[in-house]
């Protein structure tokens, strides 16, 4: 079976086999990270454009490094204002970018749906680097990779994901990824931060963190945007932190070897205490490193696009 995908828009329609392939390939790429020459020629001569409509130094840098370690040429293109203010449509902007003759476009946008819209008008492969509140599939994959690396499996693990589920693309991609890989996932948040009918995605929902975290293998904390308080989604930072923040006390209720994850950037002392963030159980820094390997795998696997077939690895393949 070949890897037939040309675009990565989300994990909603990914199969468990595909996810497995991304993770296995990422493992191969990770093995080059402790070499002096951290680079392979796999995508030599290809052009990858990082088209960022929304600022994100972290994600952009991770994709840039991933593309460079695959020997692709990388261009960073930041569009700071929305196209509305320029008298140009989104499609106009995207076509202008593609005229630079790119093979793949990595897109980040504060509005949901932009990567999918671009697949309909552009010829390049599109990788979603986060769109609005929709999906952030490479974050989902790197989180799965980190869990598998630490726990040697994903199936059957008890995972609790805590915080602002409603506005989080990271949460959505992880919900799809974790449930597809057979994890037992519980979302913990106040009802105001849970989107409508989220249980339909095959997850449990709880509002009591102390109860939910008992026996957890993985504790995933989401970033809370502090300005949400102004819309009455929670009464105060203090109350949110008390009820839904992860501290040493609550973490003790989880399994002893539970790992703590966070997609960054953290609000120390709000959703996660410094003691927890800096503890041995925290794998937050590994998540960042794994992000590069996972993004290399994504770029590499999508590069063959629709014509992909699997190379025979016996020496006589060529």
């Amino acid at each position, binding site marked *: 079976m070949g890897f037939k995908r040309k675009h990565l828009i989300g994990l909603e329609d990914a199969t468990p086999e595909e996810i497995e392939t991304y993770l296995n390939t990422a493992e191969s790429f990770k093995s080059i990270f402790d070499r002096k020459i951290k680079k392979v020629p*796999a995508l030599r001569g290809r052009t990858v454009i990082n088209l960022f409509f929304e600022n994100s130094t972290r994600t952009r840098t991770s994709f840039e490094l991933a593309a460079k370690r695959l020997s692709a040429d990388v261009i960073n293109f930041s569009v700071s204002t929305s196209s509305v203010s320029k008298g140009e449509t989104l499609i106009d902007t995207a076509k202008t970018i593609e005229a630079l003759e790119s093979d793949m476009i990595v897109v980040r946008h504060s509005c949901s749906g932009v990567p999918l819209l671009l697949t309909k008008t552009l010829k390049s492969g599109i990788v979603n680097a986060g769109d609005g509140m929709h999906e952030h599939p490479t974050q989902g994959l790197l989180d799965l990779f980190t869990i598998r690396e630490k726990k040697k499996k994903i199936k059957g693990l008890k995972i609790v994901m805590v915080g602002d589920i409603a506005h989080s693309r990271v949460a959505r991609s992880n919900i799809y990824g974790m449930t597809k890989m057979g994890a037992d996932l519980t979302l913990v948040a106040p009802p105001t931060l849970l989107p409508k009918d989220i249980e339909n995605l095959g997850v449990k929902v709880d509002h009591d963190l102390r109860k939910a975290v008992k026996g957890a293998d993985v504790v995933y904390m989401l970033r809370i945007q502090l300005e949400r308080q102004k819309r009455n989604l929670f009464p105060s930072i203090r109350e949110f932190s008390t009820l839904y923040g992860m501290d040493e006390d609550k973490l003790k209720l989880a399994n002893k070897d539970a790992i703590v994850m966070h997609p960054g950037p953290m609000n120390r002392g709000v959703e996660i205490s410094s003691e927890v963030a800096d503890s041995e159980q925290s794998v937050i820094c590994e998540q960042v490193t794994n992000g590069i390997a996972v993004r290399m795998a994504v770029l590499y696997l999508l590069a063959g696009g629709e014509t992909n077939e699997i190379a025979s690895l016996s020496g006589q393949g*060529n």
Partner: protein
Amino acid sequence: MSKKIMDKDGLGKTLARLAHEVIEKNDNLDEIALVGIRSRGDLIAMRIAARVKEISGKSIPVGAIDITFYRDDVGLKIAKDAQPTDVKFSIDGKNIILVDDVLYTGRSTRAAIDALLDIGRPKTIQLLVLIDRGHKQLPIHADYVGKNIPTSFKEIVEIKMQEMDGEDSITIT
């Protein structure tokens, strides 16, 4: 139509001869290391190292290299089951013997040389292959050849190894 050109015994003898040639060509066995190209090249490398130890008493380091990401045909063929490269020793200053099952176009060897040079800076690189079937597209030759078998483009050389395939044999189809 398939033709068996080597069985378990034949393979054993050929590997023994190759081990002798390796010892003969390299004065200082402490400076050499075997690196097999995945998959099967790494298995052949381990067998040769075992023979060398039987004959000379010396343990030669063995590594495995994955050349998937060094191929020149990404886009035509994408491997979705790449395995990690596994070379646990430093190759700097060593005489490296690259081990592959079949030498055909020479492109895998080229990729393997690139992959090796990204890991370190060996003193020399030699090439050992079990079968040389001709049709090279690059100026690459093997220093050690188990058997020369002239083939046509249409033919497929199939190598089976006990560790992977449950039997030792080489056939042409």
